[in-house]
């Protein structure tokens, strides 16, 4: 009886009078005042995609500058601005909005709720982070920065003190950076509170903690991480503002303040932030890999435990960003070991995904292709991470292109690839239409080729001693050819991403109809129509297992009999 209450793709629109076609003004108005988690999710995603293109252009400008030694395409000042804005944008205005977009859209649907716990807080959080993005980019018009030259922050995305202090960064560019991060932090904390309250208080009947799908579980974990890790960033932005506006001395080395304290505070935020960004990638892999292997996820309790474990361990590893800053040997040893400890839960997750695929009937659809590429690239990124966690090795390679290659391997190879997988997997649910498969395959292969050309090769200039954040280099260093390969790879990725964006727009109008459940999947979001109505479910669903739709489709062999 309980299982039958889930309407599979019908019985939603019955008896509902369709209102007259709204005018464009009404459509825009409805998107601006909306408190619907699905519309806000899509707004977050669009916001993230726009900034992805902007930050991508910034990356391309840097790569063009580095194509030839002694190139003059960008001035040194502009180059500084480009890497500062690229980093800040990608983390705060691309990564966070995209992860919140998918979270907003999927978490209530997957736990069988009609909306988030606090819909208006949700809208507030979105608009304040969107405003933070505009504020950061307004600095191009309104800012005066380092050396008195105009526009945009130029202190790198970690804005090490005392460079970010008033004495060394006069003008307003760092202020734009600070206020923007403060506001986007408030938005992130608001959404994190919302997601936690939603997961714990809005679950449909029967969904005990052990039956929550893995995606909501991981979103709860990363929301907890946001609460304890983004708040320190907010705190140190407050301190920087006290310094810059009220004449305080928190990071003023002339008055006894400590520049190292900023580095500690920033990385207390900065490292867990990496896990905040990578956990949604894991979450998507947890949903996609089983569906396309036609098997239930291997080791559900271990997966939950490993994710929560990653959450806790990641809070104690921040100083591995600071081995060259001069810590005690005890500090070095502690952070080396704690960093290596992270590889245990992540290893558990990797092996569980492999075990899920093992013996399954794998369907090589686009979401699965991206997930498989993710698995390979994630393992390699993890291995260079372990190399860098060894403090002695780190001293050699710190702030070199090896580090840049490592974290781009995580951010692009793992996170961006899983974001693409999520798009191919959930786009039909959000729009009701499938993404074009031919364009998607082209996107996938160009992306894989471009990614490996760029980021595999980028390790080598690092090993040869090329430091990061330099605007040019001499021809006799032997870095030229490597840099040129990297730039060509980046161009290929740019083409791939343009194809992807074209595919998003093209398929929205021309894509084939998806129907409620195009992938024959098992979680509750596929139990309603595509796109779902504003109220998600006509009747509140009731579940008895982790795969309610499997139970419904296979009443002779339900999961609930075994869990």
């Amino acid at each position, binding site marked *: *009886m*309980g299982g039958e209450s889930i309407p599979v793709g019908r019985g939603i629109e019955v008896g509902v009078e369709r209102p007259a076609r709204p005018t464009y003004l009404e459509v825009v108005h409805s998107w601006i005042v909306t408190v619907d988690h699905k519309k806000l999710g899509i707004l977050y995603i669009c916001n993230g995609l726009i900034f992805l293109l902007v930050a991508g252009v910034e990356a391309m400008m840097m790569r063009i500058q580095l194509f030839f030694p002694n190139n003059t395409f960008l001035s040194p000042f502009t180059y500084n601005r480009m890497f500062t804005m690229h980093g800040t944008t990608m983390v705060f205005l691309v990564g966070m909005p995209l992860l919140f977009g998918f979270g907003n859209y999927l978490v209530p649907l997957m736990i069988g709720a009609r909306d988030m716990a606090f819909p208006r807080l949700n809208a507030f959080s979105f608009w304040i982070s969107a405003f933070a993005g505009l504020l950061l980019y307004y600095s191009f018009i309104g800012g005066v920065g380092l050396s008195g030259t105009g526009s945009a922050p130029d202190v790198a995305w970690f804005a090490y003190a005392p460079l970010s202090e008033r004495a060394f960064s006069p003008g307003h560019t760092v202020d734009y950076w600070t206020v923007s991060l403060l506001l986007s932090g408030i938005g992130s904390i608001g959404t994190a509170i*919302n997601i936690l309250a939603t997961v714990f208080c809005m679950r449909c*009947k029967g969904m005990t903690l052990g039956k929550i799908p893995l995606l909501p579980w991981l979103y709860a974990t990363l929301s907890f991480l946001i609460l304890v890790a983004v708040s320190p960033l907010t705190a140190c932005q407050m301190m920087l503002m006290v310094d810059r506006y009220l004449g305080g001395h928190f990071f003023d080395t002339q008055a006894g303040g*400590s520049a190292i304290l900023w580095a500690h505070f920033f990385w207390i935020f900065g490292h867990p932030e990496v896990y905040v960004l990578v956990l949604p990638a894991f979450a998507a892999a947890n949903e996609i890999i089983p569906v396309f292997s036609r098997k239930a996820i291997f080791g559900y309790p271990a997966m939950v435990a490993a994710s929560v474990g990653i959450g806790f361990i990641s809070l104690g590893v921040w100083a591995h960003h600071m081995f060259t800053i001069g810590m005690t040997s005890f500090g070095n040893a502690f952070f080396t070991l704690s960093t290596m400890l992270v590889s245990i839960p992540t290893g558990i997750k990797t092996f569980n995904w492999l075990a899920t695929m093992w013996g399954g009937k794998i369907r090589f659809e686009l979401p699965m292709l991206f997930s498989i590429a993710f698995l390979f690239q994630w393992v390699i990124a993890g291995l260079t991470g372990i190399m860098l966690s060894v403090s002695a090795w780190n001293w050699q390679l710190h702030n070199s292109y090896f580090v840049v290659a490592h974290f781009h391997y995580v951010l692009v190879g793992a996170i961006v690839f899983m974001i693409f997988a999520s798009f191919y997997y959930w786009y039909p649910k959000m729009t009701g239409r499938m993404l074009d498969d031919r364009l998607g395959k082209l996107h996938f292969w160009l992306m894989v080729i471009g990614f490996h050309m760029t980021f595999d090769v980028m390790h080598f200039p690092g090993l040869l001693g090329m430091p990061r954040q330099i605007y040019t280099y001499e021809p006799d260093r032997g870095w030229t050819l490597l840099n040129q390969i990297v730039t060509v790879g980046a161009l290929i990725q740019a083409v791939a991403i343009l194809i992807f964006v074209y595919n998003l727009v093209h398929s929205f109008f021309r894509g084939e109809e998806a129907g409620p459940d195009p992938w024959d999947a098992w979680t509750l979001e596929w139990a309603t129509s595509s796109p779902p109505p504003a109220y998600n479910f006509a009747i509140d669903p009731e579940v008895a297992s982790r795969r309610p739709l499997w139970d419904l489709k296979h009443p002779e062999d339900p999961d609930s009999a075994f869990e």
Partner: protein
Amino acid sequence: MATIPLEHSNREVPWRLPTRGMVAMTCLITAESSIFTIFVVAYLYYLGRDVQGPTPRQVLEVPIFYTVCLLSSSFFIWLAEHAIEHSKMTAFCLWWSITILLGLTFLFGTGMEWYKLIVHDHLTIRTNLFGTTYYSLVGLHASHVVVGLLLMCFTLIFAVSGGVGPQHAYRIKTLALYWHFVDAVWVVVFTVVYVVGR
């Protein structure tokens, strides 16, 4: 396996979930705690590193009376919570008003202390590291007191005008949880600034 029926709907277990207000407030408190932690760490780290005076030992006096006021307000807000749960609205308004008064007294104490420090001891936020860390830590706490007082004043106005009734008991408890947090933070700030730091 075909014979196993879907039995879960037959064994009716009551389906209870935590209230979203309490969960959200707990989360907010977690986030706020880490903000305070950073400021407390900065305060402790910079103790005794000033290049010029005044130092905490020279200028700080222990605000025992105002501390007692703030901490006892937690007791009165607990009485208010208890009253509204049992639909005693008059008692609720009384205990709630006492809580607000105690909070205001504490805020007055902080104001007097700052007045003394700024006017007599010439310690401002730009004087030295102690000034920077002291005013920002104590000020951060005081701003939380102000937010709590504003929310409680609104609640009192609505309670007197009949807009808040016993049906809102759980919302009152959520707000009270925030107030308990503000008090608990003062215990930490007090220990750090006036006990360890002096």
